[in-house]
Structure formats: C-alpha cells, structure tokens
C-alpha cells in the first residue's frame, strides 16, 4: 500500500529531516511511527500525502509512484487518504457539520447523501449533538475528534494521523484509539505518528521507530 525506498528529505536551509528511509506498509495494516519530537515523523507523513516531495528516493502510495505523478493527479491521490493534522486545520468560520461536509463537497457527492454520511461520521466520534457548533466553541478533544470525522467521512483506504492524541488526557486518548482500531478493523490502512506509548500499548500495532530521521524497524509487539 505504501512503500518508501531510500527516501531522503532535506528542507530548504539544509536540515535533513528524513535520512535514507526505507519502509513498507501493507494494505489493512495498522502502523505507528514512533519517535521523539523532531525525529521526522510528520515529515514522513507529509511525504506519503505528497505534501512534501522527497529530495531523493522513491515514494509509492496505492501503486502510484509519487515522483512521477503529475500535479493535476495529486488531488485524486489525496481523496484516497484521510488526513488527521497535528494542528487540526479546521475551518473556523464553518460549523462542525460543514467542516465534515468539506471532503464530500470536494468530491462532488450528492448533497443529501453527503449530509447522511457527515452525520454518521459525527455520530461515530460522538459529536452529533454539536453539529451546528463552530470549532472555536469546541474543546481541544472535540476539535481533534472533529478532525478525525472529517478524515474518515469519505471512507478513505488509508488514514494518516499526526499526533492524534497530542494534547489530550488519557480518557480522551483511549477513546480516540478505539476509533482508529474500529476503522482499521473495517479494512483501512492506518498510519499514526505519535510518541504516545500508552496508545501503542493499547492498540498493539506494528511499530516503526524513527530517530533523527532514520528508520528502525522493531517487532510488532509494544515496546
């Protein structure tokens, strides 16, 4: 499903955030990218979502080599992905419902069908009661869950989540972990960048350790 071969990412300014990384993630897998802050986890996710381009090496997602993908094709690649951003990236002038509708509008879903799916997604993350609320009126955990609802509403084949439990207390984190587990159980490939060891213990995914931009594959068991 996702394969990186000898990928290096050097940011303008010369810093190498990812160094010669090779890894492969199968369809339907749940994988955690674990490492300290600044290890290069976010950069790896951005490379997979074609938000950043590798300085060298090859990235293949869903059978498509991103290096040879034309700019016009990138939106269609991203429609197979669900992205949970570290900083949520919600639209603050739109209601929770409108935020979740966004991916469906972009993909041209019929309005009624889209509304049904959006409500189902909001229900799944426990925000159905906050449909009309603006994101600013939601707590941090609720915003995080809203972001997840928006990421899964169009049933993507791959879910990429960046620090989804970053600033949540344990109870919320556990809840969100269950959401990911459920999503993985219905067949989606789930890739989570995190340093939350408790979450890793709970979900028992395959772990890929990242340290200073280098990949270090460990056993599938929790550390």
């Amino acid at each position, binding site marked *: 499903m996702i394969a990186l071969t000898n990928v290096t990412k050097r940011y303008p300014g010369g810093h190498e955030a990812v160094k010669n990384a090779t890894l492969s993630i199968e369809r339907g897998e749940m994988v955690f990218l674990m490492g300290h802050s600044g290890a290069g986890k976010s950069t790896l996710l951005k490379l997979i979502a074609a938000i950043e381009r590798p300085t060298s090496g090859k990235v293949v997602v869903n059978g498509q080599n991103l290096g040879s993908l034309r700019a016009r094709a990138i939106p269609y690649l991203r429609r197979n*992905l669900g992205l949970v951003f570290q900083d949520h990236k919600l*639209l603050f002038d739109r209601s929770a419902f409108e935020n979740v509708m966004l991916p469906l509008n972009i993909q041209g879903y019929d309005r009624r069908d889209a509304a049904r799916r959006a409500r189902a997604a909001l229900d799944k993350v426990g925000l159905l009661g906050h449909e009309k609320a603006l994101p600013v009126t939601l707590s941090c955990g609720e915003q995080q869950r809203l972001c997840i609802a928006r990421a899964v509403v169009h049933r993507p084949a791959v879910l990429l989540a960046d620090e989804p439990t970053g600033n949540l207390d344990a109870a919320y984190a556990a809840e969100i972990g269950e959401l990911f587990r459920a999503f993985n159980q219905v067949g989606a490939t789930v890739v989570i960048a995190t340093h939350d060891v408790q979450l890793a213990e709970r979900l028992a995914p395959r772990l890929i350790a990242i340290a200073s931009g280098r990949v270090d594959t460990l056993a599938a068991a929790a550390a």
Partner: protein
Amino acid sequence: MRAWLLHHARAAGAALRKLGRSPLSTLFNIIVVAIALALPAGLYVALTNIQQAVRTLSPEPQLTVFVALEASKAEVSLIDTRLKEHPQVARLRYVPRERALEDMKRASGMGGIAEALERNPLPDAFVVDAADPAPDVMDRLRTEIAAWPKVAHVQLDAEWAQRLDAVLKVGRVALLLLATVLAFSLVAITFNTIRLQMLTQREEIEVTTLIGATDGFIRRPFLYYGAGLGLLGGLAACGFVWTATTVLNGALIDLSYLYGARWEVAQLSWRDSASLLAFAAALGWLGAWMSVARHLGRVRPR
C-alpha cells in the same frame, strides 16, 4: 455531467454568500465597477442620440450645380441631359435663375437688395439627389460635375452635417479608447479584489487543497465572484445611465413645450444593456481567472 453541474451550482452559491457576507465592501466594489461602466455607456448613449438628431435634421445630402452666367439655353439643356443620364443621379430639380431671384425677393431682409439690382446676378441651378449619399461618393460626383463645361460651381449641401459626422467619428474612437481603458480597470479591480479574498481565505484554500480539491474546485467560486461583481456593477451602471437619461428627458419636456416640439433622449436599448451586462460579467470573470492563476501558487502550500 450531474456532478459537474452540482459543482458549479455550489460554487455560484458560495460566491453569492461571499458577496453577501461583507455587504459594505461588496457595495463599494459594485459602485466602482458601475462607474467604470457607466462612463462609456453614458457617452455611448450621448453619441447615439446626437447621431440620430443629425440624421433627422439633414435627411439626405444634396448637390447644387450652379451653371455659368454666360451659358446659353442650349448649353443649360445639355447639362440637364447629362445629369439626367448620369447613373449616380437619383433625382433632379431645375431652378431657373428667375425663380431663384423671386425666392431671394421673398426671403426676409433680402428683398430690398434684390429690388436694387439692375440685372439678375443669380445663375441657373440644378439640385441633385445622389443615388448613394455616402460622403466619398458625393464628393467624387461633385468633382466630376464641376469639371463639365459651363458649370461654374458645385456646392455640397449639408456639409455641416458631414463635418458633424466626422466629429462623431472622432467621438466614437474616443469612446472606444475610453471603453478599453475602463475595461482594463474593471479587470484590474476584480483582479485585486480576488487577490484580497484569496489572502483572507488562505486557510480554506490550504485545507481544501490538502484534502483533495482540484485547482478548478478552488478557482470556481472566485470566478463566479468576479463575474457576479461585473454583472451587478453592470446592472448598477445601466441604472445610472437610465436615471440620468430620465432626468434629462424630464428637463427636455419643459424645453420642448416652449418650442412646440417633442424632444426626447433615447434610452440605452435592451440589446445594448444586455451586451453591457455580458461584457461586464466576462471582464469580471477574466480578472478573477487571472488573479487566481497568479496567486494560487503563492497562497497555498506545495
């Protein structure tokens, strides 16, 4: 096809909502666009009306052929025949010199002078209606006839009308220049408005790009906004011109009572109004398109 229509309907709806979200700046933009459009539209209405007036005041230009004083009756009738047989001559009226003198005597103020004359100083004359009243055709005909024997002088009547026509032609060129300049300014206005909008909607553009929006999806509401701005500005411009013409007509009614005539300034026609709206919408669309093409790469990541 359905999805495509749906996309467009949504984009149009979003654009309308944007127009409505900041009513004051929208109103201001519409007024600026309207002024840019009302100036050439108003000038156009003025030119059309002057042209119409000129046409009613001088029906058809005519040539007056003055025969030399010393010409004999035979020579005059030769000129008469040549004129009758000329293919460019549509109608011909002979004014004998005696008649001309009578006319002059009857004309107010000239009577005394005519009485005082010992002999008739006026020549025989022919008034010619040409088959084709185009100015250059008339001019050639005049030169041709003037070269005939015993023709003293050929006068092109309604010369003032032709001169005015030439002035109007200059007016039309000026209108074209003005319209071009203001069309550019309309494009510039939408270009800049869309640029500001894109800056304020930076986040929305970024987020939608990240979750799979195509350039077309992002561009569409801005295009509709630009076209909508042009359209509303065009409507307002039509309103300005209509109001100005109506006010002018109100004033003219009083004046035309004094002269016992009915004067009226013609409104911008429906067809011209429709063209103006279409033109304005197209320019707004163009300005928006150029703005998005220029700024999309800068506003969003990647």
